[in-house]
């Protein structure tokens, strides 16, 4: 008999907000020394009250729109009670009764084709803190920085059949969420619980289901699914063990799963609506506003860039990061040529980053500065090589392009008046060469040209110097 795996995913994604979900502490769990991003509210001090960060609701709605969900008109926060030292209130605020989004779908493509995965719901919740075990002193310390960092949990239907589909799904969510500024999806910012059962192919009834908790690396998830599927197969086909419905833990070093708790000892979370947070009513207006202000999708950006004449390769590179698109859009909006802009971002910035051992994703540059450099080059104020030099200073010394050019004397050469002054000075200083040239010795032109370039400390635009020299010489003929 052939068996198939039935896999469902619960994916937790940390949202890219400036502040936590119920207080004004900064978001971004990974940043800061332990317990420096914490306040009485997220530390659960007596008397504190949560206040919902609207941005969290909007990002959850955004995710719902991308995954073709129905957005709930009425959504509530509920308390999930359990004791753990990293949970300061001994309850987590999550959504149990009325999640913000339901009934969505997403298409995933693997080498075996494209399939549609159903999304049961998306809900918002707060993250817990972190325990730090110190084996040396045998103590456990709590870091509350991550407490109350906003998460969405995307609950899929049990529609996956292979680990490949799961991988494709997670990669797609990652790209989608990064591109829509929903999440930065950094290492650890996306965590998964995987539900697995197996059944004979062609049957409907589900087998005994196990859940593997809290995995954050794609390779662990793949290996865990493969291991767990094989374990189920062995149990069913060869009777190696009796499967029970339970929660398991993946051990990446040992490469196997271990039982954590079964159905009988499962916690009773005593969900009930949090009376401190009023139900959120989501009207059509709000949904429309979220939809209208949503950053363009990868597909929309691709079409837009095609119309601007960018190559497929350029488009692929730019759309790999929302930030690159934003930079490109800002620079072109400031009037720079699209092809040039793509070239400056991808070739010039990319080259400089590589030289410094960095990747495109780490590019941080103010669009005004990049635009100014391009303007200087296209306006022949500086040549491209000098432009590259300025760009490097902008990227790594936070230099101002104009100030940098001035300080390094890069600005005179393209300034026609300034260059003309230099030309006149050289002509006046070397009357013999002028005479020779006017007398027909064309070679003297090279001497005059060299004199000008020397005066300009090598930063002159050869074309400009040549033109001005010819102009001034013709006046003296």
């Amino acid at each position, binding site marked *: 008999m052939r068996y198939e795996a039935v896999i469902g995913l619960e994916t937790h994604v940390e949202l890219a907000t400036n502040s936590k979900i119920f207080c004004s502490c900064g978001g971004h769990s990974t940043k800061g020394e332990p317990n420096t991003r914490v306040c*009485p509210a997220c*530390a*659960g*001090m*007596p*008397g*504190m*009250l*949560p*206040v*919902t960060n609207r941005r969290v609701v909007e990002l959850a709605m955004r995710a719902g729109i991308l995954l073709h969900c129905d957005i709930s008109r009425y959504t509530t926060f509920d*308390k999930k*009670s359990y*004791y753990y*030292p990293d949970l*300061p*209130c*001994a*309850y987590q605020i999550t959504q149990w009764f009325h999640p913000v989004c339901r009934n969505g779908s997403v298409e995933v493509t693997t080498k075996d084709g494209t399939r549609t995965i159903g999304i049961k719901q998306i809900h918002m919740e707060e993250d817990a803190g972190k325990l730090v075990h110190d084996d040396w002193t045998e103590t456990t310390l*709590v870091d509350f920085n991550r407490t109350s960092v906003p998460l969405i949990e995307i609950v899929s239907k049990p529609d996956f059949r292979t680990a490949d589909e799961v991988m494709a799904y997670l990669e797609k969510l990652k790209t989608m969420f990064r591109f829509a500024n929903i999440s930065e999806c950094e290492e650890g910012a996306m965590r998964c619980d995987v539900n697995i059962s197996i059944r004979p192919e062609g049957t409907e009834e589900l087998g005994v289901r196990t859940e593997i908790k809290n995995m954050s690396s794609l390779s662990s998830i793949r290996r865990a699914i493969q291991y767990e599927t094989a374990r189920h197969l062995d149990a069913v086909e060869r009777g190696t063990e009796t499967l029970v419905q339970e929660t398991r833990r993946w051990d990446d070093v040992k490469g196997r799963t271990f039982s954590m708790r079964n159905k009988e000892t499962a916690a*009773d*979370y*005593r*969900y*009930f609506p949090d*009376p*401190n*947070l*009023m139900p959120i009513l989501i009207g059509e207006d709000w949904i429309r506003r979220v939809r209208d202000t949503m950053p363009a999708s990868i597909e929309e950006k691709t079409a837009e860039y095609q119309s601007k004449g960018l190559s497929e390769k350029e488009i692929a590179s730019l759309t790999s990061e929302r930030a690159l698109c934003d930079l490109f859009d800002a620079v072109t909006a400031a009037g720079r040529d699209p092809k040039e802009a793509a070239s400056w971002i991808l070739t010039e910035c990319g080259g400089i980053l590589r030289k410094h051992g960095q990747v495109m994703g780490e590019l941080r540059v103010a669009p005004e500065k990049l635009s100014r450099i391009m303007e200087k080059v296209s306006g022949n104020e500086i040549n491209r090589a000098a432009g590259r030099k300025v760009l490097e200073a902008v990227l790594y010394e936070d230099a101002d392009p104009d100030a940098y050019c001035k300080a390094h004397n890069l600005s005179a050469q393209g300034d026609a008046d300034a260059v003309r002054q230099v030309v006149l000075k050289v002509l006046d200083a070397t009357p013999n060469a002028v005479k020779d040239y006017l007398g027909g010795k064309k070679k003297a032109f090279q001497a005059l040209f060299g004199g000008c370039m020397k005066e300009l400390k090598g930063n002159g635009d050869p074309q400009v110097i040549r033109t001005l020299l010819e102009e001034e010489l013709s006046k003296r003929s």
Partner: protein
Amino acid sequence: MDILDLTAVELGERIRKRELSALEALEAVYGACRARDRNWNAYAAFEIDPARTAAQRAQALLDSGEAVSPLAGVPVGIKDNLNVRNCLTTCASKILRGYRAPFDATAVRKLKDAGAVPAGTLNMDEFAMGSTSETSCYGPVRNPWDRERVPGGSSGGAAAAVAARECVCALGSDTGGSVRQPASYCGVTGFKPSYGRVSRYGLIAYGSSLDQIGPLARDVRDCAALLDIIAGPDPMDATSIPFPDTRFLDALNGDIHGLRVGVPEECFGDGVEQDVQTGVEAFLDELKRVGAELVPLRLPFLRYAVPVYYILATAEASSNLARFDGVKYGFRAERYTTIEDLYTRTRSEGFGKEVQRRILLGTFVLSSGYYDAYYNKALKMKQMIMDGFAEAFRRCDVIALPVSPTTAPALGSSLSDPLKMYLSDIFTVPVNLAGLPGLSVPCGFDRRGLPIGAQLLGASGADATVLNAGYAYQLATDWHKRRPEGLEVSGNV
């Protein structure tokens, strides 16, 4: 005349006229507490240094002309469950012994901003759970009208301190009657505002959907003056409601001509002590005499209020009190093995019996399989009670009823029979379930000389109407001016 016999508004006037200073007013309160509080045990703690600092700050505000509140310079006692920055805030519980609040409750901050002086923390039932103020880890509070009787609860320390002239006025909290019932037992005036009127930020929660901070004072004017300071929407409390701005003290005119006073028949008769009934009926007669119109009402849903209340309040409490686990602050059991053991021992040793009882009740009603039968059903009943009141307020402007079916019981007589104690909350808990404003005013004494309280309720947001009705009553009577005898004498014992 002793300055502690003045009302808060009168004291504020004298301070503004420079007849005495904020510091002198504070020292008078502190002196009375030191001299006499061993008789009543109304205070949980009185940290004089921060109070003096606040008084000096208030005086500076007064001198610069910046403090314009009628209560600038007036000391205000604070129930031990309201956060006062850097001061002990313990909910009268061993589990929070020594805990100092890292921030001011919004109500406390507003007091300070208005130039009022938070002065001393007032004893209470542990975590505001109780109707007698006997469950405090600091020992029971006694009733200034009779030392062998309870002052009511849970804001018993606040009511006793106001009655015993150990404080001028106070902030309490009311989850199921915890301001109104002790006010009634101690012969002072207490007001529970509409739910959402006063920010709960910084109030250590018992039942979040029911809790409301409210004033206890000598009379309605003082309550209105305090409410003026502490009321108003707060971005830190998502359940605070932006009611139209009202100046409560200014709104008191004592004119209740044509005011329709609903009289629910369920609240008079069986189960209500004869003296209480007589007292409240006299209260109704007086309202009628000064111009109100009495409207007979039936509120059959009231009989569901106690069970609904004890499901919702304990469910919320079980969650709100879960954070006291010995990990971060407060008490931690000395000996433990595992983390589970740390939790179990800390909570078993740190919480008193009544608190543990309510946590267990609340945990039970939220348990999987029982949620629909209890909590969910109670939520529906709560809505039914709200609708029932809304319907009643179409026929009347305020509703009058007793605060409690009895006057203050003897010390020790309630805790042995918790069910009986819960049932005595019958007239106060429906008000919290419906989020209504409720006022308790003294309206006479029983044959043992114990104060009787009458209660006035209004629709949500109609706080000013309720206060004005109480004010009209106090203009016509002087029950609220009576003081227990022998306060000074017993102070010298």
